[in-house]
């Protein structure tokens, strides 16, 4: 029922993050971690603010965001449509299910070298990797969500003359929405991780690239700036997803 963000809730949410930062500061101050490996948070946030206004850093963020969104969008479209199709049609299910069983648990990074050669060192290979990793959580959630849709909802729609194909969009999709959105949330987090990983393995720009170059030369502060950025990005994207969620699920009791 509490669909609106109340300010006490925001405070509650900020509290643990502040605690973590305090813990971080404590670890540095009391010597549990040398500053060269774990720089004090003040430094990192200071540098972040400095960096944010530079065009190079903005360019890195833009590159990462583009790959992130492109890959995630592909994963959502593919995952949702395949998941629903598999839940609705036994023939498709018989094909998709074993393929998913095999492909889902594969470590996609191991295919990254092959992807690089196929798609080059630019956006293409990274977007593909992000999509491949984010796809399966979304697909699985959609599948399970769609296969537990209340039968009578489908019956009602069919009796109202909805053609079978449209049932998927008009009933199964909205009814499975809570589960799909959970899958998307997981897919989004995975996308964040994977886009970073891909950029760390090989790239010439992006936050992941900024991170490895800093890490190799032990510039701890510069290394933490991309980390904090991705953290903030995660928070922001999650907030957006939360807003989308409470809009889409406004009729559901759990919203």
């Amino acid at each position, binding site marked *: 029922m509490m669909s609106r963000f109340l300010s006490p809730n925001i405070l509650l949410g900020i509290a643990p993050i502040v605690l973590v930062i305090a813990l971080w500061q404590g670890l540095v101050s009391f010597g549990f971690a040398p500053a060269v490996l774990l720089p004090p948070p003040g430094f990192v946030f200071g540098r972040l603010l400095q960096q944010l206004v530079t065009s190079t850093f903005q360019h890195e963020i833009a590159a990462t965001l583009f790959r992130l969104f492109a890959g995630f969008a592909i994963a959502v479209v593919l995952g949702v449509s395949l998941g629903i199709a598999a839940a609705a049609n036994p023939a498709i299910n018989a094909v998709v299910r074993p393929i998913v069983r095999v492909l889902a648990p594969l470590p996609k990074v191991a295919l990254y070298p092959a992807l690089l050669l196929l798609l080059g060192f630019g956006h293409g290979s990274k977007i593909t990797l992000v999509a491949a990793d984010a796809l399966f959580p979304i697909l699985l959630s959609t599948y399970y969500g769609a296969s537990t849709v*209340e039968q009578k909802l489908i019956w*009602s729609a069919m*009796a109202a003359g909805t053609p079978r194909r449209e049932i998927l969009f008009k009933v199964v999709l909205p*009814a499975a*929405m809570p589960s799909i959105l959970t899958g998307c949330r997981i897919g989004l987090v995975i996308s964040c991780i994977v886009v970073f990983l891909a950029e760390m393995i090989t790239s010439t720009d992006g936050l992941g690239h900024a991170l490895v170059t800093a890490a190799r030369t032990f510039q701890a502060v510069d290394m933490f700036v991309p980390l904090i950025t991705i953290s903030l990005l995660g928070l922001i994207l999650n907030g957006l997803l939360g807003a989308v969620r409470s809009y*889409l699920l406004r009729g559901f009791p759990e919203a």
Partner: protein
Amino acid sequence: MKVVPSRSSEWVRPVTPHEPASVIIEIDRVSQVFQTSARRDHVALSDISLTIEEGAFVSILGPSGCGKSTLLYIVGGFVRPTSGAAKMKGRAITGPGPDRGPVFQEFALFPWKTVLGNVMYGPRQQGVRATEAEAQSRALIEMVGLKGYENFYPKELSGGMKQRVALARTLAYQPEVLLMDEPFGALDAHTRTRLQNDLLNIWERDRKTVLFVTHSVDEAVFLSDKVVMMSKSPGRIRQVIDIDLPRPRRRNELLLDPRYQKYVVDIERMFDESDDAGAPA
């Protein structure tokens, strides 16, 4: 009451139910056996045969769990009977269609749509233009007494209100056959009486066929041309009673009619005769 544009508004229904009408629904030796989780067979319907004439109002009465809902699902085409077959206009029923509109016992409203959205769904699906569908739907919502609740989501409605939305949703797309599963079960007497009259009006005007599950003998006799009495364990048809009362019927007149009272008393007695608290087959 001009909410649902009638298909043939000039047409007047003959008042005698016994005129030779064409058969619209034919249920032919239908049985339904469920596999329970305990891996046992459970016979819900056993050898049901029934024919329903076009334009007839048929009620089904029977003890709880005797298979009334299951029978409706089969006619609706939602469930395939284990054996036997149901036909509509001579063609086997293989799936749901907009010619048969169900009102489910559990309502089954779309939780992601508002009251208006739920009611408009059918007409929109049938290709009615948005403005027109909305006007029709609003009229139906008003008819079921939910004016002002158009933008409420199902979770914000009371049980009886949900039931009325489900009723309006099905009426909105004007199916030829209505399959109604205790559609007034959660309503107070007053609302119930009003909706019974509304339903009769629509039925008489649009020459619909209605298959109506109810627990109220009263209601069954008041509304129907024919009452099907079922018995339990396994679900069978016990008796089919033709209700030979003049139409149009008015509640207050009918209540005083000794024929009406006799029907009610007879049917009630019949139920009392058998103790139906049986165990599953």
